[in-house]
């Protein structure tokens, strides 16, 4: 061991960092961005799940309970009619609606079991828990506050759950399976493309291509063609494995799942080509991976529903292609949507638009001359 020689290596590494400002920025900037995202996603300033409350109770408890739910720190409540609530739920305007039945007060007075019905959208498990928690807390508080005046004791809460999509038969894998197909395929294709394209640049062959009669669009289209062949095989493999080996629940058309997966890879290929323009070394390209993939994984609604993010973060989510891919895959697999479904069609159109925009951007940034 020789301190001076080892020290020479340490010093050289520090010099290399000094010359590579971008790496330093990523090294110090990315953790702040990612941890900040975690903070906002796991509660700090996030939006509450929207829940409609329909009060049909003929006694006093329903009104008190509804008011108490309105002050809940878990959910954001609107009181409305049963018809409006049902329509809100099917439009994705609310995560759930709670119907307080006509006999609510009567049952509570008899210290009976109360059974408000909780209608859940069903495709976002993360939204179910806050609703049930809020209901439980409010039932306790509301019935206590009425205990002396009305003779209400704290009843046993046994909400009956009604799922618009999915249901109690679905497990965690079923909820996340579809979304993960999108994420996994997107991630892998992105990484492979950005490294391949950067190698083209660093080994000098890109310059050689630029000195040939090839147009910029030829190069981008060529890359798309080559990678899409491999991506198509990968998409089929991933979907078949997910559906038939893991038996992830699927209610929709397998062809649509593959279509969405392929569209995601098309976006990934072009995003990778575009971003490779901003990296000069493979080292820097590798650092684009956490910067592109992790925020997308966090913000695309796979784990944390987009609707409960803080407002400004929802805007960011809406600017990420993976959000639409994940949403589309869930529409197909959990809701069984087909091309006739408006929301699914919108997701597909948006992903296609992202792909087209990225193809154009990748082509435009591919400069013929070095300067």
């Amino acid at each position, binding site marked *: 061991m020789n301190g001076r020689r080892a020290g020479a290596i340490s010093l050289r590494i520090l010099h290399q960092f000094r010359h590579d400002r971008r790496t330093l920025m990523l090294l110090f900037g990315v953790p702040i961005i990612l941890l900040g995202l975690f903070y906002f996603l796991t509660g700090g300033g996030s939006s509450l799940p929207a829940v409609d409350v329909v009060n049909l109770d003929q006694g006093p408890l329903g009104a008190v309970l509804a008011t108490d739910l309105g002050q809940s720190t878990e959910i954001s409540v609107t009181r409305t009619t049963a018809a409006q609530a049902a329509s809100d739920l099917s439009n994705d305007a609310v995560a759930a609606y709670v119907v307080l039945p006509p006999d609510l007060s009567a049952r509570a007075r008899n210290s009976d079991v109360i059974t408000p019905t909780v209608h859940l959208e069903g495709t976002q498990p993360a939204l179910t828990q806050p609703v049930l928690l809020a209901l439980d807390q409010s039932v306790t508080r509301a019935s206590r506050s009425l205990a002396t005046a009305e003779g209400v004791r704290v009843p046993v809460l046994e909400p009956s759950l009604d799922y618009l999509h999915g249901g109690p038969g679905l497990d965690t894998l079923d909820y996340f399976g579809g979304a993960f197909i999108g994420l996994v395929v997107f991630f892998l294709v992105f990484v492979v493309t950005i490294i391949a394209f950067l190698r083209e640049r660093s*080994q*000098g*062959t890109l*310059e*050689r*291509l*630029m*000195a*040939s*009669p*090839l*147009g910029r669009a030829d190069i981008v289209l060529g890359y798309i063609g080559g990678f899409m062949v491999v991506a198509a095989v990968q998409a089929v493999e991933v979907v078949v494995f997910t559906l038939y080996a893991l038996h992830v629940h699927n209610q929709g058309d397998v062809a649509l799942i593959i279509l969405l997966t392929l569209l995601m890879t098309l976006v990934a290929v072009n995003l990778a080509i575009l971003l490779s323009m901003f990296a000069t070394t493979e080292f820097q390209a590798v650092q684009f991976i956490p910067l592109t993939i992790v925020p997308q994984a966090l913000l695309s609604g796979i784990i944390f529903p987009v609707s409960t993010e803080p407002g400004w973060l929802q805007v960011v989510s809406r600017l990420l292609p993976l959000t639409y891919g994940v949403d589309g895959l869930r529409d197909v697999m959990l809701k069984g949507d087909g091309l006739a479904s408006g929301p699914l069609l919108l997701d597909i159109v948006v992903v296609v638009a992202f792909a087209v925009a990225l193809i154009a951007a990748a082509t435009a940034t591919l400069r*013929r*001359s*070095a*300067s």
Partner: protein
Amino acid sequence: MSTPAVAVCVDGLAKSFGTIRALDSVSLTVGNGEIYGLLGPNGAGKTTLIRSLVGLVTPDAGTVTVLDRRLPDRAILADIGYMPQSPALYADLTVDENVRFFAAVHGLERHAAAQSTADALELVDLSPRRHSVVATLSGGMRQRVSLACALVHRPHLLLLDEPTVGVDPQLRAELWQRFTTMAAEGTTIIVSSHVMDEAERCGRLGLVRFGRMLAEGTSAELRRLAGVERLEDAFLVLSEGTS
């Protein structure tokens, strides 16, 4: 295409990278079938000049006309072969796959590409290694593959940026023999070098330094101009006036 009398005409070309002046009002005319050598030390501007001839450098001022077409002109690139200084190849492909790829990129259809690839590999004496993966080749062999990639489409204008670096003397002599033959058949070759014995083989030479064209002429003319016996000395003498 019909062959024009003048292959390359550069007029008042200037290019700076930041504060570094790579080319400073360079003018140059190369006739058809000529072998023109660009001589100069490292960093003189030879590479930038060659890169401007394939549109890889956007000039700050001046014009470049190649084979009667004013650059930028993508179509004319099909008729130019460019060999960069470092052998830019796909290291994970075989020799044959690399050369074939560049043949296809320059518009050769399948059959013609296969034939031209075989010819080009013959020319650089690599036929026995055509199925070797490039990553397994020595530096000199890679240089030859790179040359094959540049001339596989039989261009009218061949731009070679230090093509014989790492090539052993015997093969170097053979390559120059081929260059001479190609020039005789009408291919214009512009080659950069700082090896003086190679310079002797060029029809005309341009001495480049500090991004400027210091002197032009045949080897004999340059030696006479400088009043010295050896080309190397001529180069040193002619550089002095400007430094």
